[in-house]
């Protein structure tokens, strides 16, 4: 019984941290601290997997938690931090949104996520065998992260802050997966993790090359190819 209480409290804590870190990323301008926030978010995601592992009693999930921690809290933030140091760009100084407008939009997106996730919660939120129970009721947090990821991708001008947006989007999808279905099978989880790591590496390398070729402001200078 104590395990169940611990698991539920851990679940509430980690989903809360996931939501708060996503909001912080919208508000945050400094790239280096954005990466630190992203690492905290990765750690929270790993703890969420532990909480679900405790509820489900599934040892495989603890392996997944270690993978998530190594990848999203350590490896990817390190790749990004290195790319930021070598690019010399420290701040997102030309966002399309000021922080206040960003926060208002995040509030709207969160409401939207709760509205659109009704069918997801309705289908998986039962307490029968194979259903996710209380965890499914936090599924809108994952969807909010997906939407915040889109917001960052569309409103940020710096190449590396767009990468941060992509990673938040990916964290959101993983969160939805863990909350509604206790995560995808291990083989698929490993494949997805490897893909995400490689995409982050490729984007870091590409932004470095573009920086060397074009100068400091890659994405907003991308106007060569158009119809």
């Amino acid at each position, binding site marked *: 019984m104590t395990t169940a209480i611990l698991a539920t409290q851990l679940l509430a804590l980690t989903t809360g941290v996931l939501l708060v870190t996503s909001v912080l990323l919208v508000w945050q301008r400094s790239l280096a601290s954005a990466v630190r926030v992203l690492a905290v978010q990765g750690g929270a995601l790993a703890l969420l997997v532990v909480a679900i592992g405790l509820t489900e009693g599934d040892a495989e999930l603890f392996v997944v938690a270690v993978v998530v921690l190594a990848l999203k809290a350590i490896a990817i933030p390190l790749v990004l931090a290195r790319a930021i140091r070598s690019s010399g760009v420290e701040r997102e100084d030309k966002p399309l949104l000021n922080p206040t407008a960003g926060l208002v939009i995040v509030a709207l997106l969160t409401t939207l996520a709760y509205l659109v996730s009704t069918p997801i919660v309705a289908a998986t939120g039962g307490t029968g065998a*194979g259903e996710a129970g209380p965890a499914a009721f936090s599924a809108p947090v994952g969807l909010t992260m997906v939407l915040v990821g889109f917001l960052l991708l569309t409103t940020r001008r710096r190449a590396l802050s767009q990468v941060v947006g992509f990673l938040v989007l990916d964290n959101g999808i993983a969160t939805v997966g863990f909350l509604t279905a206790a995560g*995808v099978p291990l083989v698929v989880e490993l494949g997805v993790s490897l893909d995400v790591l490689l995409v982050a590496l490729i984007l870091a390398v590409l932004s470095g*090359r573009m920086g060397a070729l074009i100068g400091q402001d890659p994405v907003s200078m991308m106007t060569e190819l158009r119809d």
Partner: protein
Amino acid sequence: MAALLLIPPLAALVFGLAAAFVRSTAVARLSGVSTSAVVLAAGIALLALGKVPELGGGLLRADALSAFMLAVVGAVGLTSTWGGLGPRDHGAASAPTTGQRRYAALVCVFLGAMSVAVSTDNLGVLWVAVEATTIATAFLVGHQGTRRSLEAAWKYVVLGSVGVAIALLGVVLLYAASRSAGEATLSWVALASGELQLDPGLTKVAAGLAVLGFATKAGLAPMHSWLPDAHSQAPAPVSGLMSGVLLAVAFYAILRIQAIADMVLGPSLMRGLLLTAGLLSLAVAAALILRQRDYKRMLAYSSIEHMGLLAVGAAIGGPFAVAAVLLHVLGHGLAKATLFVVAGRILATEGSTRIEDVRALLARHPRCMGIVMAGWRAGLGWAMGLTLALLLVLFAGLARASAAMVLGAPVSDAAPRHPMHPGHGSPEGPMTPLVLALAVTAVAGFLSVPLGTVLLRAAAVLGS
């Protein structure tokens, strides 16, 4: 038997590693061609054997549709890589540069990822393989290292990964639906069998997201904006591979998702989605192809047009339309790979081999008629009427540009220009693969045995 499934990915791995680490010009030149040949042979062998081998609990599984797609990947790969070989440098027998080795290795990885994508039963593995194609092609698109190619590569990776990430959300939700239906599985066979009572509301959201995501990768409007940039900046054989099969592989994923959604929800949801995306793609392509000045971009818009046609065909459903869609996948793949290879050669010098362009265009259009005929049969007359009108516009646009290129008056300063895009290949190269590919394209539509049987068998897999 089941070992056949392992051959394409293993071949891609072995040839890829060889290309990356053996410092030999022959290996770097021939690794892509060999991988394609092995994939083609495996696909044809699977089709001929006619069984459904399975390996690793459905991690790899090839029914008739998978075997057909495997053969298409091999055939188009062979056309692109073999046709893309430049003449051998007899003078300089030195080791290939790092760039050349990386290019050859990535082409092998690309082919291997597509083979895995079409020969798996697990939707999660399918997603991982499709995302792996983005990873493999990222540096191929940016291979030239110019500002424009880097810009194209950046847009391609960001839009491609984000799009495919949406598909992952769909796949994850399908998994959640199967889990609350009693058996947690990502197996396509189990999901499409109708034995699991998937929740309709959740399946609707999941299938919609998955189709939206894979449609980004398939280049369907309105998520097509990466496609003209990436296809026009990549080296010619890579453009051929991306346009000829990568789009088709993403479309194959849509067909699989469609089968699941149709089983749970009836055909209306997918029909609406695919018809909208298909007609919108045709309209976008028709609007933009008329004023294209760059012929590689023109070919890219033509690919969007063909993906639109495939979507319209899949929306119609039924054995004839799906068989026509598959025939069109083969025809478009071969013809478009040829066109991009030829475009690469035209780019290297203006002149010489332009006649292929026109022949390929003509050979390509009988394919469309299959879909149009099937469409009339299924009673979607208004959509077909619109489709036909848009096709006429597209054909006019393509014909005008090609005719100008083939017949137009020579430019007055006839001095050979310096090749502007050295990465795109040389003006000369083997003609055999191109002639073979076009011959297959021209003849394929009329072969009821064995091709017709194969297509109907593959269409039957999707339950139509």
